[in-house]
């Protein structure tokens, strides 16, 4: 039986963070009431898209902030998923949350509904930084959220932190890492702040009101992170992700291994049978289209072999253990060397990749230059 990852997008947030270019929109109770039934019908349609022979190994309910939906709606969603899809017995079911939506009894109900992994968007343990990022929660709420989740029985918990914020130093970030580690998460993601188009930060940056950290500073903080996390016994398994042994995010591993996934909800992407597709982003339009046709796909492309290979490398090289060459060759029915021989030689020459019998991975130097390395494999 083939397995697949399932992603559900909840496109609402209490407030749009300054750096955010995700598909997130202001909460709108009236619209959200129409959104949930639409999502349920898209789930019905999605189930027919993947057919009987695929088993759902992971579910990831992300956003936006899924917990902006009432707990009741999340319960309905989860039970609907169980009805429509064949979920593996040991399925990883992750839900993203934000300390600003903490409510008494919430986590107990989520556990009861089958969620077994929680990803908490903390970003920073400093009030000033939270304000700069336009996060709408306090440091105290962050702590409370993690404690409440653990008290409710979540023993697979992930946190997100951001680094290279304007004015931040490696020392300050180290303290955030230590604070996070003291809360004993099973998993931690650290994201370097980047400035994306169509965000408040982008405009501020353009007007000279927001200074990005210098490259050296970014590098120093990243290196600091690697040191602290290794010292605390976490495994660095992906460029931005660390975990206690065996606690990788299985859902994200599907992406990085360029595996099949079905995405439902506004702006969600799917990869099924060599075809990538994406839903329309605007919730109102999504609701309209699902109600009219059962689906909301606005973009679809069938990948050419060379594109699919490029994507496999683009994603797989993000994993520290890299890509298994035999699996690549079996998948694309071609010799890896034949396709990339010259590129490999160039990169080996510059000491940017490591190559052993069956794996290609970034070298320690290549890790910091991953984008440039990956670019070499793109045509």
């Amino acid at each position, binding site marked *: 039986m083939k397995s697949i990852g399932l992603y559900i997008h909840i496109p609402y947030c209490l407030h749009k963070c300054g750096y955010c270019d995700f598909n997130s929109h202001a909460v709108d109770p009236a619209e959200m009431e129409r959104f949930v039934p639409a999502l349920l019908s898209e789930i019905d349609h999605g189930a027919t898209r993947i057919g009987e022979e695929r088993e759902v190994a992971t579910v990831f309910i*992300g956003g936006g902030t899924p917990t902006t939906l009432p707990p009741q709606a999340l319960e309905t969603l989860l039970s609907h998923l169980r009805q429509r899809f064949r979920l593996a017995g040991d399925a990883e079911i992750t839900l993203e949350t934000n300390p600003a939506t903490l409510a008494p009894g919430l986590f107990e109900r989520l556990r009861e509904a089958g969620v077994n992994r929680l990803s908490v968007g903390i970003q920073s343990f400093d009030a000033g930084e939270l304000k700069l990022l336009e996060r709408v929660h306090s440091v105290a709420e962050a702590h409370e959220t993690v404690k409440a989740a653990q008290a409710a029985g979540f023993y697979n918990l992930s946190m997100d932190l951001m680094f290279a914020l304007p004015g931040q130093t490696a020392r300050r970030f180290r303290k955030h890492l230590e604070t996070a580690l003291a809360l004993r998460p099973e998993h931690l993601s650290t994201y370097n702040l980047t400035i994306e188009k169509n965000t408040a930060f982008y405009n501020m940056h353009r007007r000279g009101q927001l200074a990005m950290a210098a490259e050296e500073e970014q590098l120093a903080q990243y290196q600091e992170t690697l040191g602290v996390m290794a010292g605390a016994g976490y495994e660095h398994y992906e460029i*931005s992700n660390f975990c206690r042994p065996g606690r990788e995010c299985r859902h994200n591993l599907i992406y990085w291994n360029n595996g099949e996934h079905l995405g439902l909800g506004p702006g969600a992407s799917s990869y099924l049978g060599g075809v990538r597709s994406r839903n329309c982003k605007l919730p109102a339009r999504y609701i309209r289209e699902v109600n009219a046709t059962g689906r909301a796909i606005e973009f679809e492309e069938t990948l050419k072999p060379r594109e699919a290979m490029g994507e496999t490398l683009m994603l797989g090289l993000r994993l520290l253990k890299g890509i298994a060459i035999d699996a690549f060759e079996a998948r694309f029915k071609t010799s890896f060397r034949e396709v990339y021989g010259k590129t490999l030689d160039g990169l080996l020459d510059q000491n940017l990749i490591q190559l052993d019998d069956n794996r290609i991975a970034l070298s320690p130097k290549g890790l910091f230059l991953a984008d440039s390395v990956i670019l070499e494999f793109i045509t």
Partner: protein
Amino acid sequence: MKQNQIRNFSIIAHIDHGKSTLADKLILATGGLEKRQMKDQVLDSMDLERERGITIKAQTVNLRYKSPNGGEYGFNMIDTPGHVDFTYEVSRSLAACEGVLLVVDATQGIQAQTIANLNLAMKHNLSIIPVINKVDLPSANPDSVKEQLEDVLQVEAHDAILASAKEGIGIDELMEAIVERIPPPVGDADKPLKCLLFDAWYDSYRGVIVLVKVVEGSLAVGDAILLMATGRNFVVEELGILTPRAKQVTSFKAGEVGYMIANIKELDQTKIGDTVTHVAQPTDAPLPGYKDVKPMVFSGLYPISGDQYELLRDALKKLTLNDASVSYEAETSSALGFGFRCGFLGLLHMEIVRERLEREYNVELLTTAPTVVYKVITTSGEVIHIDNPSKLKGIKNVDRMEEPYVRGTIIMPEEYIGAIMGLTRDRRGIQTKMEYLAPGTVLLEYHLPFNEIVLDFYDRLKSNTRGYASFDYEFLDFRASNLVKLDILLNGELVDALSLICHKDKVYFLGRDLAKKLKEQIPRQMYEVVIQAAVGTKVLARETIKALRKNVLAKCYGGDITRKRKLLEKQKAGKKKMKQVGKVEIPQEAFLAVLRTDGKS
């Protein structure tokens, strides 16, 4: 048509003073085209002309004018370009005319090319009808323009035509003036054929099409003709006029202008300015002919990817079929590989040719910085022309070097005199004239090394005068000069395509500035890049581009992998446009960095 009914004239002016728009109105008023067939500047037919709103190639049209006085006339009108690079188009057109319409923008008055083009017309002894155009504009000042015409150019201006080509004002009056003030041609139709070949182009269906003016005698379909300069014989297949649509006729008599098709296969079988005569009864007094147009600036054109070399060669071959003023010759650069050294009339011409090659022939090009032609005189007296700085290498026994000078004319409001004197001093100019054209407007004349103009002179002139200066130049002579070759080394390796020749007094500043500009334009790479500017073994400047240390998008992109891939593909496409020299990737713009130096930093 009888000779006394014919009027042959060109429209000449400074750039943008409205020649082509005036031509539109004359075509419309005489019924050459109907309103629904018209568009603005209808004679500017090339894509590039339309996009840039300028005329590049002169166009001839034959119009039929019915005068209210009852007479009927044939107008041969030639719309000419105003830009200095295409002055040659003007001079060859004038040879086919008895008069000109000298168009002057009523808001700008006399500008540099007004004077240059008027001088050409005077050299040809042509009748001049001043047309003061754009009188519809609120800032128009026709009286002051009249005064300038009379005081400065000694052109009779009391009966200048006040016109608005845009609004159609003054057009009827202008047509009458053409009849009355431009003399008809005077050649004897009974003498042996003497015919001026004043334009030629290549048409893929018909072969070479030439424009001729019969000066004496007459020419008919079926005639055996001789092109006197090239010594080739042909038989006339078709004659006709452009109205602007082609209309066939059977013969031309003295004074008439039109096109001729004579089974001429290649453009180089014709020579602009040549005399066409009958094989059987040739004229014994051929026309004086024109001076050859010589390319003034040279640059290396290289395909970005080596496999486009053949494509580029074919493209150049085809393009020169229609533009004989471009020269090309294969060359090799150790940095860029195989390419061509091409010669152009000027910088605009270079830009246009480059754009045409890229667009019409789909070649992706890398252009090296333009250079003028220098002369090296060896101790044995041999003269070597240097159109590529690399050619200096290996010449032994150099006695001296010479560089080309031009006579430059600048017209501008007097308040900028200080700024312009500063600029021309920096550019090693020698002032030879200063004259008030009108209160507040001055004309300055300079002798300037041509290489100083090629490096961004015009833009600086414009920015120093808030756009108010106009500039014209013509080649003067070669002068001995203390010149050196400035080299650029990347990681210790000389990049021949970045070398340039400059005056010894300026090389230090130019070297420093160029190294800095290159540092800005070469993106950081995964290793350090050291840029050095040197003369011989002496390093004048050094800049370092630090190695990229971190380039990793830590962002989690959920499932939107397509977006990420597309982003990378776009980056990659940009990277592919760079030229790899040794290990270093250099973007195209870097090869033109010298154009953005000011040599003053």
